[in-house]
């Protein structure tokens, strides 16, 4: 009972609750924007042929491996008072953290959607032509036919967003109640030697990660079951 009471106390603690709220708000906003960008870019990259396309694909693949702390630093330099975007006053805000997350997550979703489109879209387009579909109808059909893969890409992006620490620490500044996320809170609690709260947040993050993984796997499993009936 003591453990449950202690867990409840930690969970209802204002700081922890805020960290969860900030994490989810940031992750949902950045994943929503990245999903729109990533799906559009992935499909456009598959469909359009232009000089430099291969280089663009390589750049996108390179961005997959970019250290988040480097993104954080670049966004920090952009948003700092004397930086090019300083006038918008986004540094140490959730919006600023969302910007950094978009730079990290969009290449992941773009890359996954591009790979799926590369294998799926030509067959869908050929089918759509033979059915007499218009260009617009063909685009909608292509997205519909990749829906499970797109869900999977979005879930992967969300998983990345909630577990990010380097860039959000730099851009958000880890301000309690405003920009402190679950991961930056864990980092801070550990440095203060407050392990119980840190572990509780860690367990919560693991639960989120488990739910996301389960959701992603269930999409894939459903797909495989349908294919191999």
């Amino acid at each position, binding site marked *: 009972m003591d453990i449950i009471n202690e867990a409840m106390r930690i969970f209802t603690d204002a700081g922890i609750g805020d960290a969860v709220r900030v994490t989810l708000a940031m992750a949902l906003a950045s994943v929503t924007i990245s999903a729109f960008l990533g799906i559009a870019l992935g499909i456009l990259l598959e469909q359009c042929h232009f000089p430099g396309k291969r280089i663009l694909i390589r750049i996108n693949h390179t961005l997959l491996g970019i250290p988040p702390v480097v993104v954080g630093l670049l966004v920090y330099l952009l948003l700092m008072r004397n930086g090019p975007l300083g006038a918008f006053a986004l540094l140490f805000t959730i919006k600023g953290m969302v910007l950094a997350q978009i730079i990290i997550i969009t290449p992941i979703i773009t890359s996954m959607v591009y790979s799926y489109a590369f294998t799926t879209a030509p067959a869908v387009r*050929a089918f759509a032509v033979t*059915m*007499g579909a218009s260009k617009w109808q063909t685009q909608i059909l292509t997205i519909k036919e990749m829906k499970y893969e797109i869900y999977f890409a979005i879930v992967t992006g969300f998983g990345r967003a909630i577990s990010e620490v380097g860039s959000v620490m730099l851009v958000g500044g880890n301000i309690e109640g405003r920009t402190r996320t679950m991961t930056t809170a864990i980092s801070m609690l550990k440095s203060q030697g407050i392990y119980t709260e840190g572990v509780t947040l860690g367990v919560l993050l693991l639960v989120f990660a488990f739910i996301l993984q389960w959701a992603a796997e269930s999409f894939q499993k459903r797909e495989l079951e349908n294919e191999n009936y």
Partner: protein
Amino acid sequence: MRIINLKKQLGRFSIDIPYLALAKGCIHGFIGENGSGKTTTAKLIANILQPDEGQILYDGLEPRSITMSSQKPYMLHTSVYENLIYPLKIRNIKPDEKAIDAMLQKYDLYEKKKQYARSLSSGEQQKLSLLRTLIFQPEFVIVDETLSNLSAESLELFENLIWEIQKKRCITWVLISHQPHIINELCDTVHFFSNGRLIESGRKEQVFLHSQNPIVKTYVQRQAFGLLKEG
């Protein structure tokens, strides 16, 4: 429909057809060995591929009224019913549910109406693909080996369906098949492809029985078109 100086390069393989006329209202057979260019030519006609050079003159035929059923048909990630009505949906045509149920019943797919289309057997998928191809009343239909995997019973049903459509609307068909009896039963004219070239066109009797081309002669003998001679 006329094809004039059509050229298409696909890797090392190339299509080169100086002239091919496909008379309206006829059932045409595309025959030849594997990799001879039948399917590629069909895809060029169906607008799936674009030619590098040359022209396809559709002579008033709307591109939307040309359709093609492939050997490995694409099944949408949805039910049998949704797959079947897709051509109607994109044309904003309300499906006649009674007619669709009757059609599914006739072709033994009614029990599987709500089933996931990709879980059907290959033969059932080909039946569904053919029905989907014909549901919006196209003017030009290309059937690429789709009839080959059907059971004898289903094949007879589809042969009858083709005759029925021809009696009512007299549309143009291109049948691609390696099965001599399908070509023999259904086609008016045949077009023989070899190595990306059209090497002979004409009435089926003329091509099967009187061709002077050694490649055609060998193919015909191998495919036992000699049966026709006996008949």
